[in-house]
């Protein structure tokens, strides 16, 4: 099947896409709960919702094994959850509580769960690209049968690591798939206005990393092309995927995004990937009630996560001095 076209409804693997639907609902509900918590000042640091982009996370990560690796960005909840991280531990992390994925030390922008191969979101745009190349390099050195997926946004393609990391992957023939989530914006800026040339795919191709472009709001399309590219990447051909999508919320949960017309956003909501998926499944004959039950279960799961996180303890103070490094007293000269 050519890249970027989804299966027709008739021969759809229903179980597979019901699972993807569930994952997308869980991500949406997780972030909805997190935004609420942020508004209530229960979550203190900035959070960057991926609402509207869930199909990319679910479609790509659904094709990975547990010991495969991903690296993510500031907008990393979806990827992390889709890779298998525990939602409650993630929620606790956002609340800065004990039992958080990183014991409350990282928060949303540094969400990570190494136990499921999620090697970290990153607060520095594009910094994850070189790190991901290195993780793939280690796989090659060790002769492991794993692959790395590195997610980043369309704004990241203007930073040096985009060039350096892709070149590295190409030179060393590393098992890595780069996924550029092209949501049209870099914070308040339309990315195109600050990008010269034809964009991520053209750049990747010129660096010898063959690209495909997909409708990032079509879960089946993402799922299929991701499966293909991940297979290739695993065999040592680095690949590149551009997923065209849209950030339905502001840049952060506190950004009302006045820099884009209300009409544009309204129209984009009509292309909500979760609703798209639901329609696809309905067309394929899945029961509406089954899907509603999934959506409700997701909502309940995240509501519970929110409540449990809220009731969780703060981390022990002394944890501040743990895991700095093995040697040297960090307290010297301090207050």
């Amino acid at each position, binding site marked *: 099947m050519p890249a970027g076209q989804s299966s027709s409804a008739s021969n759809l693997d229903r179980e597979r896409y019901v699972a993807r639907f569930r994952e997308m609902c869980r991500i949406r509900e997780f972030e909805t709960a997190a935004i609420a918590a942020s508004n209530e000042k229960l979550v203190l640091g900035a959070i960057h919702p991926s609402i509207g982009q869930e199909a990319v996370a679910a479609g790509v990560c659904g094709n990975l094994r547990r010991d495969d690796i991903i690296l993510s960005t500031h907008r990393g909840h979806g990827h992390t959850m889709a890779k298998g991280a525990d939602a409650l531990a993630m929620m606790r992390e956002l609340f800065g509580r004990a039992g958080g994925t990183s014991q409350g*030390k990282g*928060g949303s922008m*540094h969400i990570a769960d190494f136990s499921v191969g999620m090697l970290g979101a990153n607060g520095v745009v594009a910094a994850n690209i070189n790190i991901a190349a290195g993780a793939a390099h280690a796989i090659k050195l060790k002769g492991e049968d794993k692959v790395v997926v590195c997610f980043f946004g369309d*704004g*990241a393609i203007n930073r040096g690591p985009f060039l350096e990391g892709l070149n590295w992957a190409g030179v060393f023939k590393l098992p890595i798939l780069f996924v550029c989530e092209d949501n049209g914006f870099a914070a308040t800026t339309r990315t195109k206005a*600050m990008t010269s040339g034809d964009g991520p795919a053209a750049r990747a191709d010129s660096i010898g990393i063959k690209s495909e472009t997909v409708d990032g709001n079509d879960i089946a399309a993402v799922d299929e092309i991701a499966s293909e590219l991940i297979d290739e990447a695993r065999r040592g051909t680095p690949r590149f995927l551009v997923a065209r999508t849209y950030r339905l919320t502001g840049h952060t949960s506190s950004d009302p995004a006045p820099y884009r017309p209300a009409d544009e956003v309204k129209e984009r909501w009509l292309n909500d990937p979760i609703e798209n998926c639901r329609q696809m499944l309905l067309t394929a004959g899945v029961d509406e009630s089954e899907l509603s039950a999934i959506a409700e279960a997701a909502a309940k799961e995240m509501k519970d996560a929110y409540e449990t996180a809220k009731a969780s303890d703060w981390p022990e103070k002394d*944890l*501040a001095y743990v895991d700095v490094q093995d040697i*040297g007293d960090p307290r010297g000269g*301090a207050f």
Partner: protein
Amino acid sequence: MAVMTYIDASRQAVAEEMRRDPMVWAVGEDLGRGGVFGQYKGLVDEFGPDRISDAPISESCIMGAAVGAAMTGTRPIVEMRFSDFALCAVDELVNQAAKARYMFGGQTRVPLVVREPIGMWRSSAAQHSQSLEAWYAHIPGLVVAVPSTPADNRALLKAAIRCDDPVVFMEHKNLWALGGDVPDGDDVAEFGKARAVREGKDLTIVSWSAAVHTATEAATTLAGEGIEAEVLDLRTLWPWDKDAVLASVERTGRLLVVQEAVSVAGFGAEVAATVAENLHPALKAPVKRLGAPRIPISYAPVLEDQVRITADAIAAAARGLVKT
């Protein structure tokens, strides 16, 4: 005299200097919509998108291009958003901007202002909270400004924009909303002049940036106990007002340096070492530094607080010194 916030004072400084000199321009991500903290809000309406310029996410090029544009007659103000992101542009700042005038034997100058908001601010965690002012004080060719008040933010930023050498301008994120009196008119600071926030005879507290306020709070507490602390705000770390610090400590006989940054190899070491070198016989107590432990900054407030200096800690240290 007007009452104004720290952020508004900076915006006014930029606007006034841009009116004054058509060669001044600002460049950084999202500036056309006011910048990430709103420091540039509205400026694009007055000055247009060429002079309040958006930029790609390319810190290295924002800084590097500014070096080229500064060497050729313009006066760029570079916005790094968070000082942490300036770590993506260190070659451009340290190997290029700081050295060009010297390395080329005085053939050029690099009148460049690098705005790098620093410091801890509501759970911003390890990559959005650092205070690395000591690094830049160590680099020949750079001026380092660390304003603590709206008045200084305006006056120092104006001075920075007029300076013919590169200036690392570090505003503290937790001060954006701080209000204060700001003199009217063309108030341009002189670099290297400390501000006496408070006079006192019992000890000298030297500080800069947001920590000045914590130090001042501690001094008020101490005054209630009969301990009179002199509080000096350095305002710039290079040049730094060695004369004022030495004169004060000569009078008080005691030095306490208070900084938000990591204490180890922080700028406080420079101040303490200088005082110890120069005033040994006059010291009634050992010099003392307070700074952060050598740990990254956490997200969870309770852990983040472990890195946050408090007025209590300062007061306790001051009491310790005075008792000696």
